[in-house]
Every structure is written in structure tokens, then in C-alpha cells.
């Protein structure tokens, strides 16, 4: 027959290489189709008679087929003719006998059942766990192999049984794993053996896992083999892992849980919480590795098991573990904290209390540190900023080394550090309330922004500190200031002080490095300071350059006209808009030789700029004088007001002059005269003061009309404890930028400006939103103003009321907690 010429590959049924099998099945498929078509032509030659008894019947053929089937089940070798005959017989019988398919199926079932019965007996012959598992796995593997081969000759049966005549679905059907015969085999195994002994199988497998947990070695293939049988046994195409999940996974997880329920508690009792944490951590790792070995990958089992392990090893002891946290933070035990973090990060809501612990610690430790150093840091801005930065570094290092810079911990650090920076218990800045207008009560504020600005000044001005540091050091420290500034609520205060310091540095030509000054302006812009503020600073630099050009032109011209005397005069002519706040004029009677320069400068300027006039800011002016007495000759840097006062003695060096007469001589307003005199009789850094006075008072306010002042003939500069004959000293102190009165108004100005900004911001938000809830308004307001100041609840409330009263907005009648914009 021609079909015998069909070449099958040499067929070794014991072949267990699955890749090989796949190759075979695809080859067979091709041959099978070929086969079918050929048989169809052959079958055409047989007469098809309805009444006649089929020429080829199941009963005739079965005895020929059965021995091969038994051989196949037993994995005995079947030669090629036997194998090919199976196909032929099945095909023939199905062709001639309508009922053959059902009969074959039934007969197969019986044969399979019989075989499985025998296999079961062989398995159950072993009572010892490992042997039982070994036997089962070996029987199962053999059987499972056969599940791939035995169904092949019965394609015809499949077709008849499924009643799917189309070639297409036939092709599909017998190609997959879900053939009827295969299903028959698996279901039979499942019902006959598996259901009976699965409890023993699982129990044995879990015993082995448990033994492994206790440190005993065994052949892990046994457990893996059992798992594989569970996975492969399932004939349900919808959920192939059902048997595995309902049985193996379930019992694996349960066994793990009950194992650790006992062990974990025991370990904790014996070794204490901190050791337990290490134990739990290592066990989690260990179980994960084990799970990867024994549980089916990509089934979700590993995650389920790990959830269970976290529950039994960590969540169950959450409170005990977390209770250790505050102490560890306090003692900076970063390794242990990291362990806690890694454990708790796996527990639902495990991190929350750690965040609180960290915040509490930062608040307490930060404020304690501030209080401890209160005496130093309230006096010394450098020390203060250093303390603040030291705290910041300390807290940041905990967050980094213990909590791996986790964003949640960083947020907590920021929140708590902000409280430390803005705390008012160590020092506070009291902003005065407005004297007129709506009564504004302000809350005390931290002096942090002021001290930060002072520190910047130390770095940017020519000071011992800035001389000691390298340029890179200074830059690094300025960057540090910006870092702290980020946490300052009321940045507007910083800006005011910073601007005032900058003004002094520029007026006194006291900047250490003008490039750094201008860099600082850009850095302030980068960290989000309001643009109009930063622009103002930039304009001051621009303006001072214009003024420098003007000064050199003036000197040039003056030298030509009057000779070198002009060299000792420098003029700074500034743009009122960029610099000045108050425009109050302070009268002073200048020394005559200075008075002469005034019209000269004015005339010079008038010729340069028609249409402009000058207003003199003598309170900012300053100079150098040579002071000679019996001890020696000294160069003194003084303010113009100090100069005016000292010149009162020029014609009468030995006289005692009363306060009243000094006022007449200098024409200075009372507050300025008092302040100036005080700077000459009680200058902090000078051992021997320039002026003497009587009677003694404690503050400049106490000078009386008849208090008398005279020049200290013994005045000298003391260096290394010795009086000097020559020397240079500055008595300028902190240069006055405004009059005494306008200074007070200045602080009020901060509050007034804040009110204005709050109003503007509310209107801006309402204009955009049209309607907004009170809560949302507060949030957006704080956000808009965050780079300037933190508005108090009270201030917001008052401004809302003012805006309602003035019909800019109204409350929603339907919901009094919402506002509506009125346009």
C-alpha cells in the first residue's frame, strides 16, 4: 500500500525532550493530513451499503489495537509498523462503523482506568514521604508524557465525537492540548489517583519545605515535581492553574503562615525586637528565594506568599517595631532605622507613624538646639546660620542614610524644619501695628529672615569673615543661606533687610566682591524671589554705575577748575525711584568747607541734566577726618552728622558744650542729634571714646538740654592694649538709611504692604475663579504669596471682610462658605 511509503521519522516513544516532541507533532500533522486525503481516495473504492454489516467493525479491530495501547500506556517500545497501524485501524473502523468512535472512547477509558489503578497501587506501596513523592512523580511524569502521544492516533475519534466535520476545526482540535483523549487521560488521573492522595502529596511536600526551613537538606525536585503535576493536571482550558492554586498554592501559603506564627513569636520573645527585625528581614528574603523555587512563576503566587509573610512576620509585630523608632531616630541609629523603614514600607500604612516620629524629633531637637545656643545665636548671625545649617545637615543625613531619601520622609523633614526656622520662642521680630487705618494686630515672627540677611551682609561686605574665606567658600555659604531661605515663611522681611544692607554696602563702597553681589541677585531670582523685588536690586547696581561715571566726570571737571582738592570729594547721585523710600529731608549745618561744594555739585549736575534737581541725603553721606590731639593724629571714618558735631569744637577745642548749644550749632533734629552724640560717647568697639559727657546716662533719650559734652583730649586708638599715636578707625557703625521717624514707618510699611498684597491676591484669584470656597481660597492665597510671606488666618479674614464691605466680592447666598467675584 502506498501509505506504507509514508516516511515517519524513527520514533522513540520514550523520548522525553519536549522540544523534540513539538517537532514530532508538527511533522505528524503534515503527514496526518496527507494521510487523510489518501485514505479518502482508498475508502472511495469500498461499497457503502446501509443494510450490510460493516465489513470492518470495532469488535474486529479492537483486539489488534489494544496491545499497542497498553504498550503505549506502559511506555513500552512500539515499533513503527505498530504505531502506523494504530492510525490506520482507527481510521478504518471509524469509517465503516458509525458507533466505533464512542466504542473506542469507552474502551480507551477502561484501559486507561486500569493502567491508572495499577499505577496508584505502585505509588501507595510507599509509606515514607520522600519515597511516596518520588514514586508519584515518576508515575506522573511517565503518564503525562503519554498524554502527548496516546491521543494522536485517535484523531478520527475526536472528529466523530465532537461532530465537527470541517477540516479547519479538526486541525485545531487535535493540535492543542485539549483533545478529548488527552482530557480523558488527565481527568482519569485526577479522579482516580490525585483526588485520593493529594492530601498526602501536599502534606508530604510541605513537610519537606518545613524541613528545609529548619535547615535540613533534601531533593527539592520532589516538591517541584509535585507542583508541576498540579499545574499540568488541569484540563480546564479557562483556568489552567485552578488545581494548582486551589491546592498547592493554598497549602504552601498556609504552611508558611503557621510555621512563622510560631517561630516569629518565639524569636521575638527570645531575642528582643531589634534582633527580631533583622530576623524578619532575612526571613522575608529567604522566603522570597524559596518561593521562586517552589511556586509557579507568573501565577501571582509569589506575591501572595510574600503578602502572607509580611503579614505574619511584620504586620503582626508592627506596634512593637514602631515603638523602637523614636529612640533610634534620637540616637541616629541609621542602620536599624533603615531596617525598620524597609520592613514598614511593606506594611499597609506602616510609614505614617515613622513620619510623625521624624517630624517630632526634628522639631524637638531643632528647638532644643536653638535654645541651648540662644545666647550666642541671637547676637551672632554667623553662628545662628551655622547652627541652622548644621541642623539641616543632621536631619538630611538621617533622611538619606536611614530612609534612602524617600520623598515622604523628605517632605516630613521640610515640614518640621520649616517650623524650626520660623519658630518664635527663641527670638522674635515684633512688627508694629499701624497707628491709623484698620487696626492690625500682627503676630510675632521669627527673626530668622533678618539674621539671614545680616549673615549675607557679613559675607558680601568687607569684613574679617569675608576676608578669611575664599571666593568659593563665600559662594557656598551664600548658597546655604538660600537653602535656609527656602524654609522662611516671611521672605519679605529678608528682602527688606537684604536691600538695606546692599544699600549700605554700595553707599560706603564696602562690597567685598562686586561680581558676587550681582551673582547673589541672580540667585535670589532663581530661588523664586518676586521679580519686581529682584529687578529693584538689579537697578541699584545699574544706578551705582551711572553714578560712578558721573563722579569721575565731576572730579575731572573740578580738578581742571579748582585743582586737586576735588579729589577728596566723591559724589553719589542716585535715582530716587531705585533707592529711596522716605523723602524726608534732614536739616544739618555742614562744616563750611563742605557747604561750599553743594552749589558746585548742583551746578555740575544741572548742566549735565536739565530738568532735574538734587535732594541731599546727608544722613547717608560720610567721610574721613583727621583728628589730632596731644596723644597723636588719627584718621576717623565718620558720618556727616558726626562730622558736623565734631566741628562744633573746632574753634573752641577745650570747651564743654551743652546739648542745647550743640543743637543750635549743628541744626540737627533732636532724634538724630541724640543718636549721633551717643555714637561718639559710647561707640561699642572703642575703648577710649572721642567725646566725654556729663551727667552719665544709660541711653541717648536721657540726654538733657544742659547735658554737657567735651572732647576727650586723651582719645587714642588702642591696639594690643597699648595706646597708639597714629591710627585709623571707623565710627560709622551701621549707616543710617532713613530718619529715626521714618524707620518706624518702615516696619509698619511691611504690614501695610502685606495687607495690600493679600487684597490683590484675593481679587486675582476671584477674577480667575469667579466663585470659590473659603477653604480653596486660603490654599490658593498661601500659594500665590509663598515667596513673600505667610498670611495669617486673621489677616486673610479681615481682608475678605474689607473686600466684601467694599463690594469687590460677596458671600454666596446659597453657601456662606463660598465667595463670588463682583465685576
Amino acid at each position, binding site marked *: 500500500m502506498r501509505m506504507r511509503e509514508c516516511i515517519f521519522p524513527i520514533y522513540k516513544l520514550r523520548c522525553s525532550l519536549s522540544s523534540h516532541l513539538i517537532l514530532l507533532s508538527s511533522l505528524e500533522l503534515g503527514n496526518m493530513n496527507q494521510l487523510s486525503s489518501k485514505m479518502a481516495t482508498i475508502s472511495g473504492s469500498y461499497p457503502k451499503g446501509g443494510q450490510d454489516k460493516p465489513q470492518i467493525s470495532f469488535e474486529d479491530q479492537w483486539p489488534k489495537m489494544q496491545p499497542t495501547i497498553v504498550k503505549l500506556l506502559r511506555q513500552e517500545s512500539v515499533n513503527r509498523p505498530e504505531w502506523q497501524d494504530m492510525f490506520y485501524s482507527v481510521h478504518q473502523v471509524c469509517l465503516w462503523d458509525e458507533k466505533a468512535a464512542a466504542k473506542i472512547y469507552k474502551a480507551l477509558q477502561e484501559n486507561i482506568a486500569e493502567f491508572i489503578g495499577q499505577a496508584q497501587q505502585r505509588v501507595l506501596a510507599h509509606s515514607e514521604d520522600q519515597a511516596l513523592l518520588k514514586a508519584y512523580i515518576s508515575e506522573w511524569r511517565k503518564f503525562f508524557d503519554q498524554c502527548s502521544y496516546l491521543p494522536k492516533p485517535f484523531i478520527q475519534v475526536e472528529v466523530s465525537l465532537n461532530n465537527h466535520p470541517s477540516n479547519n476545526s479538526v486541525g485545531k482540535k487535535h493540535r492543542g492540548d485539549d483533545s478529548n483523549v488527552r482530557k480523558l487521560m488527565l481527568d482519569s488521573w485526577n479522579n482516580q489517583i490525585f483526588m485520593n492522595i493529594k492530601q498526602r502529596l501536599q502534606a508530604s511536600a510541605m513537610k519537606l519545605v518545613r524541613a528545609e526551613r529548619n535547615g535540613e537538606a533534601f531533593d527539592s525536585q520532589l516538591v517541584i515535581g509535585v507542583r508541576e503535576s498540579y499545574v499540568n493536571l488541569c484540563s480546564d482550558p479557562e483556568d489552567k492553574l485552578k488545581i494548582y492554586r486551589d491546592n498547592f498554592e493554598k497549602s504552601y501559603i498556609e504552611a508558611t503562615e503557621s510555621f512563622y506564627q510560631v517561630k516569629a513569636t518565639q524569636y521575638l520573645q527570645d531575642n528582643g525586637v531589634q534582633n527580631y527585625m533583622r530576623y524578619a528581614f532575612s526571613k522575608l528574603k529567604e522566603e522570597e528565594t524559596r518561593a521562586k523555587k517552589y511556586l509557579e512563576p507568573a501565577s501571582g503566587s509569589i506575591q501572595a506568599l510574600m503578602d502572607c509573610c509580611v503579614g505574619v512576620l511584620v504586620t503582626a509585630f508592627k506596634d512593637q517595631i514602631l515603638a523602637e523608632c523614636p529612640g533610634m531616630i534620637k540616637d541616629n541609629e541609621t542602620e536599624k532605622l533603615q531596617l525598620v523603614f524597609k520592613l514598614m514600607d511593606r506594611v499597609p500604612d506602616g510609614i505614617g507613624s515613622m513620619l510623625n516620629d521624624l517630624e517630632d524629633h526634628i522639631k524637638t531637637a531643632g528647638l532644643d538646639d536653638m535654645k541651648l545656643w540662644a545666647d550666642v545665636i541671637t547676637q551672632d548671625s554667623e553662628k545662628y546660620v551655622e547652627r541652622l545649617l548644621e541642623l539641616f545637615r543632621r536631619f538630611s543625613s538621617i533622611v538619606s542614610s536611614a530612609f534612602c531619601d524617600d520623598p515622604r520622609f523628605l517632605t516630613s523633614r521640610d515640614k518640621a524644619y520649616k517650623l524650626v526656622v520660623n519658630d518664635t520662642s527663641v527670638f522674635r521680630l515684633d512688627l508694629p501695628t499701624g497707628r491709623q487705618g484698620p487696626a492690625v494686630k500682627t503676630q510675632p515672627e521669627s527673626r530668622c529672615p533678618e539674621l539671614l540677611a545680616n549673615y549675607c551682609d557679613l559675607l558680601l561686605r568687607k569684613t574679617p569673615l569675608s576676608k578669611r574665606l575664599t571666593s568659593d567658600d563665600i559662594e557656598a555659604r551664600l548658597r546655604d543661606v538660600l537653602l535656609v531661605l527656602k524654609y522662611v515663611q516671611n521672605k519679605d522681611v529678608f528682602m527688606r533687610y537684604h536691600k538695606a544692607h546692599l544699600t549700605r554696602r554700595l553707599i560706603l563702597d564696602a562690597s567685598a566682591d562686586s561680581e558676587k553681589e550681582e551673582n547673589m541677585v541672580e540667585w535670589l531670582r532663581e530661588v523664586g524671589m518676586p521679580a519686581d523685588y529682584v529687578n529693584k536690586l538689579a537697578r541699584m547696581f545699574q544706578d551705582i554705575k551711572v553714578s560712578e561715571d558721573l563722579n569721575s566726570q565731576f572730579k575731572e571737571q573740578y580738578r581742571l577748575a579748582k585743582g586737586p582738592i576735588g579729589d577728596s570729594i566723591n559724589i553719589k547721585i542716585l535715582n530716587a525711584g531705585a533707592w529711596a523710600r522716605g523723602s524726608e529731608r534732614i536739616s544739618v549745618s555742614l562744616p563750611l568747607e563742605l557747604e561750599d561744594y553743594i552749589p558746585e555739585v548742583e551746578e555740575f549736575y544741572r548742566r549735565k541734566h536739565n530738568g532735574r534737581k538734587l535732594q541731599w541725603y546727608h544722613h547717608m553721606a560720610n567721610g574721613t577726618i583727621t583728628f589730632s590731639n596731644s596723644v597723636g593724629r588719627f584718621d576717623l571714618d565718620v558720618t556727616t552728622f558726626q562730622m558736623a558735631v565734631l566741628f562744633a569744637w573746632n574753634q573752641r577745642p577745650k570747651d564743654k558744650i551743652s546739648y542745647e548749644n550743640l543743637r543750635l550749632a549743628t541744626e540737627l533734629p533732636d532724634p538724630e542729634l541724640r543718636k549721633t552724640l551717643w555714637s561718639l560717647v559710647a561707640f561699642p568697639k572703642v575703648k577710649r571714646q572721642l567725646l566725654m559727657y556729663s551727667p552719665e546716662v544709660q541711653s541717648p533719650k536721657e540726654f538733657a538740654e544742659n547735658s554737657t559734652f567735651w572732647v576727650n583730649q586723651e582719645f587714642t586708638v588702642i591696639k594690643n592694649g597699648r595706646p597708639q599715636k597714629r591710627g585709623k578707625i571707623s565710627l560709622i557703625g551701621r549707616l543710617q538709611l532713613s530718619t529715626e521717624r521714618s524707620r518706624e514707618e518702615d516696619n509698619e510699611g511691611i504690614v501695610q504692604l502685606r495687607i495690600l498684597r493679600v487684597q490683590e491676591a484675593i481679587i486675582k484669584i476671584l477674577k480667575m475663579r469667579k466663585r470659590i470656597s473659603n477653604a480653596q481660597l486660603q490654599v490658593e492665597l498661601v500659594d500665590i504669596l509663598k515667596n513673600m510671606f505667610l498670611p495669617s488666618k486673621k489677616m486673610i479674614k479681615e481682608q475678605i471682610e474689607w473686600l466684601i464691605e*467694599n463690594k*469687590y466680592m460677596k458671600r454666596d447666598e446659597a453657601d456662606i462658605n463660598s465667595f463670588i467675584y463682583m465685576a
Partner: protein
Amino acid sequence: MSTPSERRLQKELMSMLKEPPTGMEVDTAVMEHNDLHTWHVRLTGAAGTLYEGENFKLQFKFSPKYPFDSPEVTFTGDNIPLHPHVYSNGHICLSILTDDWSPALSVQAVCLSIISMLSSSKEKKRPPDDALYVKTCSKNPKKTKWWYHDDTV
């Protein structure tokens, strides 16, 4: 925030509220906040003139180009002054409101001019072309090509 014209109107409003000039009063009740572009000003006829004791209402409308563009000014309400330069629909024939406008003028200056225009009148009567004008004119008096008769009346 606010536009240049709003800032200028705000300044004018503030100065008129702080120091109200005689014979005129800005009616802030009808002025919605943040909308400074329409004003109502109450005028009182000056003592010793034909209009003594009479009250009038002027409406000002400002474009965003104010003060570079003149405001649209008309009498409104039920008492339109009987005057040779005031039409019965409230339109006013006054050169500073169109050709002779200057940004240095203000609401207050315009009101003053109108009061003085009323004060100098010797006869209470409508312009001779009132009926025709009112029938044919545009709603906006600034669109009228005025023929400024004389400054004496």
C-alpha cells in the same frame, strides 16, 4: 492688573470723591466696582443763572484709550437742560468733547465746561435743528460731525 486708563480713572475718581467740586457729584451707587468705564455725574445749575436749582445727570463713557481718546458725554435722565447746544436726546455740542479734546482734560474739567456753558446761556431753548438731528443722529454723539456754531451762547 488694571490698565493704564483704569488707573487714571481711579485717580480721577478718588480726587473727586475726596474733594468734591461745587455743583457736581459722582454717583458711585450706579458704578459697579471694577467697572470704571461708565460714570454718572449729577450737575446742579449754578446760582444766578437760568438753570439755578435744576439738577441734571451726565453720563460719561470711557474707551480703553482714555485719556488719549475723549469720553462720550451725554445728558441722561428725565431732565435734559433746555439749551441751544443741548439736543433733546441729551447730545451736547461742545468742541472739547471731540475735536478739541486734550488728555490734560478730565471728568472734572468737562463738567466745569458744561456748567459754564449752561451758565452763559441767555435763553432756554433747544437748538434749531433739534427735531431733525434727534431723528437722524447716531447714538454716539462722538460720531456726529459737529458744526460748532459759536462760543458765545
